[in-house]
């Protein structure tokens, strides 16, 4: 019962956050809306019993990545968006198609899912997740660490000013 209410509430927050993301003019407002979405999603993860993921979502995604976004927006002094209208393709074809896409995906996944068990209060132990992560998926795990290293190096190289040491 309460799960249902929570679900719909969180879903509503997420959707309105997403809508707000795409209609706001100023990027900072869009960033804040995205944070709202992420927090809502974290709540939904909790509903699904994935505590660790929920925590990671808030800490990493909302806490680090979105902060990065906000920093960049501040750094670049991004202002409200101007109105240029060059791509007719996007306007006339993109919108209907994306609606179609979303609807199609929804219908497909919804109709295809057979005996999906309803939600119960089961919670996934972090322990079992970490066991899987460090045993079966140890190699991809190490790879991702290298990936992060590369990303750092890349970001540094790209953003460096010409001819000067930062």
């Amino acid at each position, binding site marked *: 019962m309460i799960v249902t209410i929570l679900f719909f509430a969180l879903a509503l927050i997420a959707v309105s956050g997403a809508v707000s993301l795409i209609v706001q003019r100023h990027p900072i407002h869009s960033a804040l809306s995205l944070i709202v979405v992420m927090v809502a999603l974290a709540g939904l993860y909790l509903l699904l019993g994935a505590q660790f993921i929920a925590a990671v979502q808030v800490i990493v995604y909302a806490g680090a990545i979105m902060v990065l976004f906000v920093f960049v927006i501040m750094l670049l002094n991004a202002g409200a968006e101007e109105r240029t209208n*060059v*791509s007719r*393709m*996007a306007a006339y*074809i*993109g919108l209907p*198609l*994306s609606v*179609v*896409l979303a609807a*199609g*995906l929804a*219908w*497909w996944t919804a109709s*295809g899912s057979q005996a999906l068990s309803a939600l119960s209060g089961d919670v996934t132990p972090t322990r079992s997740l970490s066991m899987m992560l460090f045993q079966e998926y140890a190699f991809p795990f190490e790879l991702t660490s290298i990936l992060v290293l590369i990303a750092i190096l890349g970001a540094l190289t790209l953003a460096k000013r010409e001819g000067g040491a930062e």
Partner: protein
Amino acid sequence: MFLLEHLWIIPALPLLGAALNGIVLRRQAHAVVNTVALGSTALAFASALELFREFSALAPTSIPWGENFFPWIWAGDFRADYALQVDQLTMVMLLVVTGVGFLIHIYSTGYMEHDGGYGRFFCYLNLFMFFMLTLVLAANYVLLFVGWEGVGLCSYLLVGFWFHKKSATDAGNKAFWVNRVGDFGFLLGMFMIFRNFGSLDFARVLPAAAGAPADPAGHFGTFTWIALALMTGACGKSAQLPLYVWLPDAMEGPTPVSALIHAATMVTAGVYVVARSHIIFLHSPIAMAVVGVIGCVTALFAATIALVQTDIKKVLAYSTVSQLGYMFLACGAGAFSAGIFHLMTHAFFKALLFLAAGSVIHAMGGEQDMRKMGGLRKQIPWTYWTMLIATLAIAGVPGFSGFFSKDAILSAAFLSPYGGKILWAIGAVTVLLTAFYMFRLIFLTFFGKAEYDEHQIHVHESPNNMLVPLVILAVLSVIGGWQAAPALWGGENHFEHYLAPVFADAASAMEPSTSAMNAHSIEQQLTLVALILAALGFFIAWWLCIKNPKLRDTLAETFSTPYRILVGKYFVDELYAGAIVRPLLWSSTNVLWHGVDEGLIDGTVNGVAHLTGETGDRVRHVESGNTRSYASWMVLGAVVFTSLLLWLAVH
């Protein structure tokens, strides 16, 4: 037996001569070219004589003697090999072609002495001999057609020999094109023969045709169509109505060419084909009638045109057309051996006439208009006497060769069940006309006062290498018909007897309507009538050309319209030009060239290229450099993909 087994040698000899002269020896001294050209032709003639000896020793059952040398075309059921055959008809043609050809080669060494294309001329002449011999020796229609086309080619090459002159090249083109029309008919005939008999070999087709039932009278059956198609080809090659128009124009070529090709040999190919296929013609009463009618109408038609021509060679050209008409008249009446007989005697006296005319032209320094000649008989006596002998032969004066052959034709026309009194009557009138225009030619050229400037033109007799062939041909023109002489007093026509095995089936079809004795007396009466007509023609010619020359102009004015029509050659050339040539040129230019070639074909090809460019030009806007449109394309792709998966999942 050697030549009988190696028949291919006979055509190969002139081919070798042509190859040597044409490729290697063209610019060599005349003596070298002469040796090769004359040598190969002389050897060919000698081979023909030797072959005659061998052939005479053969038993009648092994005639026709055929040799298959190598397989040539082999496609499914159809077979046409390089096979040559000899029978009596072939023998006659061989001797005529090689003999007269050899004499004309000798003549040409003198006539073409000062021409720059000497080697090329003899190459073409030898090449012509090769093709003509192939035509005559062929044992199937396909090989015959090779020879047929080949002589057409050589005619084109030789008529347009002086290719710097536009009139010569035009005449060569015209000869080839008009021949082509006939060849189309010939090809259709060959197709029909193959369809009905399954083969094109004489040895298979002719006996099979003999066994088949004939077409009923008045009915257009199989044999009729085949015969008419073959006759179309013969009309083209032998210059009959309506395809005769190329022959007078072909006089643009050198005179030896006119003698060899357009008098003695090539134009007789049509008659040969009809004679060879006589069984097919005999099985179709309609075709026999058509052949006879075409023959005699052409004879009359051409003779009327010859009455008023002023160019000496044109008179002889129309005379050739007319005499060929006689040969077809004979074939149409069922007297095929009479037609071949006339072919042979005509070869002698017509070749002689052309060569002598060439001698006259040579003596006059190139002048061909008879109105500008006159009184030449004292200055070029040899030419005059030989030409006179030929004229007597063609007019049908008794004792000369033409008399016997023409007589045979006219009596066959009168007596044969295929003939008719009308055909005979037209033939008889033509006798009168022939005598008239030939003696007119003699009188205008050799008698009367000289119409040319005697200080400008020094008339001189031709050299020996031109005169000797004239004399030989003159002798042949006299004695050439004598083997038929015994028929006059109830004996046997030896020539007809010789060819009898070939035309055996024809003879049985030709039951004369009257008894033998009656037939003989009718023949004698017909001969008398013909003689009277010939004498009448001579007399009129003498009256108009010697006694009362002014009368000619008076007649021309009085009957000005008929006169103008005759001088204009019935305006047939203009008719063809307007009705056929101009529409053809117009449609070729506008429909085929501009319409199909430029519009359709070029349009398609260019259009495809243009379309590619246009498409590329339109499609390149996808790569707009605009991120958002790229994104929307991606969304489109994603939608398509998910729809596809959805559809697959559902079904």
